[in-house]
């Protein structure tokens, strides 16, 4: 218990420091992009959120396999907690994407490949929660959700490929061509690390909270 508390405090401190650094870099340090102006600073929000949408699903995928193999409830608890965070960050990525698209492209929504893939990912997250909610018993719901988690994660790269091909040729990710200003790249990397630390912190908190919920439910059942 004590060790867990130390971990949480440590993560909280780390996340705080990283976010302060990221805020400084995003709002003060990094130069404003010439063509898009100030709105381009959304970039340092949207990319980390999109990254967390994938990372959270990767955690679901791994925990789902381990759950089906071992039937140990702790894996399901991590997968479900990660799914909650994943759907939160996927929603935020879509919202921030819309806010960015409006001034730059003149529309709230456009069927841009990565945006489309994110939307499909969001729909798979919804399916993940729905099978759980509709299952007759909790343990079956967990197994069903694990199946959706595995199938859904494997589908993500195929969705990405097909939406990219669907929209025709588009400029490849500029980051991998070295065409990004070093200051911008630094800001982006710090921001991604800060968001990843936030994800870890929230995941640890949610898992321990859910374990407490399970414990309370068990005690209630025993003593009522």
């Amino acid at each position, binding site marked *: 218990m004590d060790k867990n508390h130390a971990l949480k405090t440590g993560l909280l401190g780390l996340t705080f420091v990283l976010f302060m650094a990221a805020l400084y870099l995003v709002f003060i340090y990094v130069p404003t992009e010439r063509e898009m102006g100030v709105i381009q600073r959304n970039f340092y929000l949207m990319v980390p959120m999109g990254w967390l949408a994938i990372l959270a699903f990767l955690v679901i995928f791994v925990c789902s396999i381990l759950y089906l193999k071992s039937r140990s409830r702790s894996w399901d608890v991590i997968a479900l907690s990660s799914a909650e965070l994943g759907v939160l960050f996927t929603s935020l990525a879509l919202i921030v994407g819309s806010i960015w698209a409006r001034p730059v492209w003149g529309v709230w929504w456009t069927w841009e490949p990565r945006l489309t893939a994110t939307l499909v990912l969001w729909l798979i997250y919804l*399916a993940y929660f729905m099978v759980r909610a509709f299952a007759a018993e909790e343990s079956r719901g967990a197994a069903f959700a694990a199946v959706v988690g595995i199938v859904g994660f494997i589908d993500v790269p195929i*969705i990405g490929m097909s939406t990219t091909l669907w929209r025709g040729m588009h400029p490849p990710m500029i980051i991998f061509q070295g065409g990004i200003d070093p200051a911008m790249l630094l800001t982006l990397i710090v921001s991604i690390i800060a968001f990843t630390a936030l994800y870890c912190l929230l995941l640890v908190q949610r898992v321990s909270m859910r374990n407490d919920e399970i414990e309370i439910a068990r005690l209630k059942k025993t003593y009522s």
Partner: protein
Amino acid sequence: MGFWRKVLAITWKDALSEVRTREVVSSVLVFALLVIVVFNFAFGTRQEVVTAIAPGLLWVTFAFAGVLSLNRAFIPEKEQGCLEGLMVCPVSRGAIYVGKMLASLLFMLVIEAVALPIFAFLFNLPVLSLQIIVITILTTVGFVAVGTLFSALAVNTRAREMVLPILFLPIVVPIIIGAVESSGLALSGKAWADLSSWLQIIAAFNVIFLAVSFLVFPFVIEE
């Protein structure tokens, strides 16, 4: 009995019960016809409009028909206790998956074999080409590969018919995009080479999800 004889026995059982009850194929066919007619009212009959939307129309019809027929794949099994019977048989869960999958594939292909000529007839479109037939068969394999898995999952939930489309449609997005785009190219008279990248995506999807569904299916039907 070897693996494939068990598989074919399950497929044969489904085909026989379908021939006797005519539950799935006939009702889904009527449904597909209705969708085509309703679309006709929604988009009008001008030939250039029809040509532009035909690939999308075709695949919306088949995707909905697929959901409808896949929903029926496990409901009679569950209601009449046949699934329990299959599970106590000395048959691996994998064989049950492949057998049910082949039966659903058979039903879907029969439905499409009737719906495609109707489509060609009503919309005056050359959809009876080799290219469209290959695209249809490939995409249908993908539909039933994930559809059989999710159908078995949905039948064990409280909401049953509601759950399948919610699971099925987002997962098959890549092959729906592939089928619509490649059908569009085929209808505008493009060569096989222009279709190849789409056909590759659909084929890759099929191989991956046949394998994944085969592996996770046992976890879906266990009691």
